[in-house]
């Protein structure tokens, strides 16, 4: 099942509001508009200029042709006359009354004048121009003065009428390419007019001009119509283009991109919901033949890749989980292999034993073992495999099983067992791993420990109530390194109360967060802080110290420990028979003391027992045999649970029950006190139980005292 929790969720971001297509359409529209407008302006400008030049040319040539139509000499005469009249006026007079000049020009208007005007009119008609004016131009004042004109009827052009060139509305001055001056102006009455002029030779200040006006209203109208039609056409074309463009934009860019982003969105949604096999990008149909199609293709490939990658990861995760659960089972199998029930031999009181193993990973490479090879011999094993985790665990299991199988074949000879173990391991050591082993065989009745060490840590021994110390035993080579290796046995005599502590290097080499090691010194310190602790607590103390020291930094090595405390056999009867003499008391006391000390009898109890022995044996010595010398037998038993000392005194003398006498009166004053009978009284008072019987011809007195204070 896909683990939805293992695939991180991707949050979707806000969608952009503006559309790409719309924006592109806007740009395109603006662009076409600008283009059209620019085209229009430029075209219009060119068009009107060329028209102007054309008409300017026409009007100017027509003006020049006027000289052929009329008698220029006569014209000259009139112009001169006009000049004189003009000069007679001051500026001020002219400006105050414009019509003044007109009135004064009437003088010029004789028959010939009128004829010339008629000729001008005919000429204008023939040439298809609106008007011809022959006049004066005052450059100083920029004044044009009408003298002769083609309007002989006097309807709209008046001789003597003057105007400023710059005074007329919207008048523009243009110079043609061939230097023919013309005026373009909009007349209130007559509309648009183009007036070309030809200059006549003149003397004096004023220029003599022939102006020829052409009505260009229709031209202007044409231009306007052109503009209107052009604009209309442009708008139509632009509309079509834009629609076409927007359509193409959407089809080939905006829509594919939207499709891609939609595909991405639903990809993310599906992934967040745990649906992993649905194709999204791969379903896209983008065939624009360009970068967008590339993008779609690449995303489809990416989708496939990611899909495979996720599948791989899920497979790996499944495998890992499977391995983890198998390791779990393996760990439990391993656990089951080591003896973990304590006490393991409840009916054996000669020793107490405890062991523990904590693995760094689920399965480890250390182990301990203990087993009886026969009724009297206990084998103890502690070992450390060179590898960890699965390889270490497998090697550990093999080694442990081998030792158990080899031991009964070889017998109680640790060195030989290790040598044989090494042979077996070397037969099949393809992985070239090795294991350190310490193997000891304890002869339980005597406390004699025979051991051999194959490269393992020095054992710790505590003897005679002293501190734990490292016992630097001779080391043989680790098991599994080379063939044909032999080992040497050594012996240790354990006496009751002595302890043995075995461990693997995980204890002294445990590290704190600063990588300092626990060390064997600290280990010994901890042991010796409470050396009398029972085996389980002894190991718990070490464990707590190591945990505290490492401050819960990751344990990197297995921690394995085994400890044994030897008490010696308790069920053996200890017995001494001596002459029943007072001077034998020290010997008997020493004998009993020895046994009591072996069994860790508290000092106070021991002394109380000593006193009892003194009293009882004294009595036997003094009274049992009268004046003869006989023997007395003392036996000492220690019952285990609770620890109780049981001592019997027996003799074959006169039958006498020492308990039958009355207790002395302890309240008497000093003068009246005697010491007779105090002995037995003391015994009764300090011992838990005193019993007498006469059996088999012997007086038997039994005292019982518990070792608890």
């Amino acid at each position, binding site marked *: 099942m896909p683990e939805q929790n293992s695939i991180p969720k991707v949050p979707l971001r806000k969608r952009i509001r503006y559309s790409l297509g719309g924006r592109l359409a806007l740009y395109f529209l603006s662009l076409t508009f600008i283009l059209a407008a620019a085209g229009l302006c430029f075209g219009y400008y060119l068009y009107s200029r060329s028209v102007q030049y054309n008409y300017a040319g026409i009007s100017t040539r027509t003006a020049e042709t006027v000289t052929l139509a009329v008698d220029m000499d006569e014209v000259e005469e009139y112009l001169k006359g006009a000049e004189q009249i003009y000069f007679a006026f001051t500026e001020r007079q002219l400006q105050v009354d414009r019509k003044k000049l007109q009135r004064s020009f009437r003088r010029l208007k004789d028959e010939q004048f009128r004829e010339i005007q008629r000729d001008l009119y005919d000429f204008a008609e023939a040439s298809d121009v609106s008007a011809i004016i022959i006049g004066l131009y005052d450059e100083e004042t920029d004044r044009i003065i009408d003298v002769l004109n083609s309007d002989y009827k006097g309807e709209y052009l008046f001789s003597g009428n003057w105007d400023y060139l710059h005074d007329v509305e919207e008048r523009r001055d243009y110079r043609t390419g061939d230097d023919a001056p013309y005026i373009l102006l909009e007349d209130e009455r007559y509309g648009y007019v183009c007036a070309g002029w030809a200059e006549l030779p003149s003397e004096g200040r004023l220029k003599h001009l022939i102006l020829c006006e052409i009505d260009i209203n229709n031209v202007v109208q044409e231009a306007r119509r052109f503009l209107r039609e052009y604009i209309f056409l442009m708008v139509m074309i632009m509309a079509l283009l834009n629609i076409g463009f927007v359509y193409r934009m959407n089809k080939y860019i905006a829509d594919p991109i939207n499709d891609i982003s939609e595909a991405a969105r639903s990809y993310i949604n599906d992934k967040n919901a745990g649906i992993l096999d649905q194709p999204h990008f791969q379903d896209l149909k983008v065939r624009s033949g360009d970068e967008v199609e590339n993008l779609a293709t690449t995303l489809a490939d990416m989708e496939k890749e990611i899909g495979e990658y996720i599948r791989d990861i899920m497979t790996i995760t499944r495998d890992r989980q499977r391995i983890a659960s198998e390791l779990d089972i393996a760990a439990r199998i391993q656990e089951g292999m080591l003896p973990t029930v304590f006490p393991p031999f409840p009916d054996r009181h000669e020793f107490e034993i405890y062991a523990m193993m904590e693995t760094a990973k689920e399965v480890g490479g250390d182990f301990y073992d203990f087993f009886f090879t026969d009724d009297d011999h206990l084998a103890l094993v502690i070992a450390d495999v060179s590898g960890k985790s699965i390889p270490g665990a497998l090697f550990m299991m093999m080694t442990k099983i081998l030792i158990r199988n080899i031991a009964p074949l070889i017998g109680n000879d640790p060195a030989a067992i290790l040598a044989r173990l090494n042979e077996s391991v070397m037969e099949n050591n393809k992985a070239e791993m090795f294991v350190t082993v310490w193997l000891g065989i304890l002869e339980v009745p005597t406390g004699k420990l025979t051991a051999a060490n194959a490269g393992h840590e020095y054992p710790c021994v505590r003897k005679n109530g002293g501190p734990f110390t490292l016992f630097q035993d001779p080391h043989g080579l680790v098991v599994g390194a080379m063939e044909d290796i032999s080992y040497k046995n050594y012996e240790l005599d354990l006496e009751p109360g002595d302890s043995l502590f075995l461990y693997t290097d995980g204890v002294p080499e445990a590290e704190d967060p600063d990588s300092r090691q626990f060390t064997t010194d600290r280990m010994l310190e901890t042991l010796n802080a409470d050396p009398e602790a029972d085996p389980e607590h002894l190991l718990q103390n070490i464990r707590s110290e190591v945990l505290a020291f490492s401050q819960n930094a990751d344990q990197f090595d297995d921690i394995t420990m085994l400890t044994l405390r030897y008490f010696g056999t308790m069920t053996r009867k200890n017995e001494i028979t001596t002459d029943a003499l007072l001077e034998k008391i020290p010997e008997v006391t020493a004998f009993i003391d020895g046994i009591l000390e072996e069994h860790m009898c508290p000092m106070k109890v021991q002394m109380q027992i000593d*006193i009892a022995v003194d009293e009882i044996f004294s009595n036997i010595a003094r009274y049992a045999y009268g004046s003869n010398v006989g023997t007395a037998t003392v036996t000492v038993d220690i019952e285990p649970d609770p620890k109780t000392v049981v001592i019997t005194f027996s003799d074959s003398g006169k039958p006498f029950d020492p308990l039958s006498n009355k207790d002395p009166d302890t309240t008497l004053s*000093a003068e009246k006190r005697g010491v007779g009978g105090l002995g037995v009284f003391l015994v009764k008072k300090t011992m838990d139980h005193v019993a007498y019987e006469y059996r088999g011809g012997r007086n038997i007195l039994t005292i019982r005292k518990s070792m608890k204070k």
Partner: protein
Amino acid sequence: MKIDIKKDGSRMTAEISGRIDTNTAPEAENTILEELSGVSDLILDFTNVDYISSAGLRVLLLCYKAMLKQGTMIVLNVNDVVREILDVTGFSDILTIEERKMNA
């Protein structure tokens, strides 16, 4: 058992170490009683006495009876075992038993 006798004028201190039992009591008896003449203050220092049996009690009683005529007797620094014996036998009622810390 060892006995160390120290005399200071009419005061006598007997430092006893070890056990006062059937076999050692006679020696204790002789050693102490011999020196008793002229002693008005007898101090039996039991600091190092392990235990005492009825034979030892007998010596105590003899010393006590002797000192009744001459002066006083004090038993010093008895341990638990001796204490119990003296209690059980009623001797702690008769004797003067004291605890004194030793000068370093």
